[in-house]
């Protein structure tokens, strides 16, 4: 029995087949959560966004354009929700017009201790990881999104461009500026890439 494609399953969902929706969810719950968590590194926020993403997939199945890729559409929904969530939560540093600067609130990933390292090395590694994620947090959102989609979701530039709704050249350009900006931000954190 051949495996149904995501697009076939979504067509079934449109026809009212809830079991097909369950299959889609089973396939994508892990990858979606990983992506959303990297965008909003807080478990409850990521869970809420994932929940809302699946809800919207279910509710808007009738709007899915045949010939499109389900994963692209799902990532678009998730990314928009992440952006909305970030705007609401103001997770990243913000400067208001009256000149007051709101202290930077960067929700970095949880620190972990690698079991195969001695405590000092593990702590150092954990600090380096946090510094990298603080540096990533300093980038403009559009550059950070491309970096995460490319580096951790391993998507092609063509797919990233489709998700972001921009030309492929724009996606590549944002990645270039993102990497350049990240290098400078890492240097500001005292991390060299030499």
């Amino acid at each position, binding site marked *: 029995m051949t495996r149904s494609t995501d697009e076939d399953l979504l067509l079934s969902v449109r026809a009212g087949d*809830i079991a097909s929706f369950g299959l889609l969810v089973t396939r994508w719950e892990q990858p*979606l*959560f990983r992506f959303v968590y990297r965008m909003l590194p807080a478990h409850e926020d990521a869970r809420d966004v994932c929940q809302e993403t699946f*809800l919207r997939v279910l509710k808007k199945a009738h709007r899915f354009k045949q010939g499109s890729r389900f994963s692209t559409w799902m990532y678009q929904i998730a990314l928009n929700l992440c952006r909305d969530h970030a705007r609401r939560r103001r997770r990243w540093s913000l400067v208001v017009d009256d000149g007051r600067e709101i202290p930077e609130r960067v929700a970095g990933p949880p620190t972990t201790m690698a079991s195969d390292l001695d405590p000092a090395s593990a702590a150092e590694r954990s600090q380096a*990881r946090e510094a990298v994620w603080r540096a990533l947090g300093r980038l403009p959102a559009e550059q950070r999104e491309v970096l995460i989609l490319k*580096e951790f979701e391993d998507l092609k*530039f063509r797919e990233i461009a489709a998700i972001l709704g921009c030309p492929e050249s724009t996606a590549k350009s944002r990645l*270039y500026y993102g990497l350049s900006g990240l290098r400078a931000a890492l240097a500001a954190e005292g991390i060299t*890439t030499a």
Partner: protein
Amino acid sequence: MSCREWKESWVAHLYGELDGQELLTLQAHLDGCLECTATLDALGRTRNRLRESPPDVPAAPRVIVVGSAPAWSASWGFAAGSLAALVVVGAGLWIARPPSPVQPSGQIVQDNRPPTDPPVGPTDRFAEQLAALDTRLDRVEAAPAVPGLTSAALRDELARFERRLSRERADELDYLLQSITASELRTGTWIDRTQDAIHLLAARQDPEVRDQ
């Protein structure tokens, strides 16, 4: 072509998406351009730094989709009506129900038609939806046990769900109250924060509702 104009080719090459003639062209350029070679090298090292520090992503909560439910009336203007499908997250379990067409939840008073029922204000709709939500929650709690789902876990998640609704409810109410205050400031008329005031404000904002 200046070096900066090669940036798209640099990143494409960095991620192995450059091939054929484009790759040959870039390689020929790199052979004679130290600046581009250095830039590409720097981009590669930055990328490696990022790859060395991937985020620790916790295990994703499991999603379980169970059954189908009768039609759910939704009114997007209020917290209880903001769900077209009921999704419950419980100890990593999500229960999703298919959406249903939105049912009208209020009456429209027209000049040329006597109302058959009194106009339903926003607070009345809200109360109706809360009652319907309670019915839904009762039905969920009475649903057959899902393997691995304990009643305690389900109760915890329903409590979380209700707390979230309460927050959204509070946000909606806050919006209404702020609208009342703004109306008072704009018109100089004190209408107070009463249920009648909320009815009046909502009715005035509804273009279909005319004064009788």
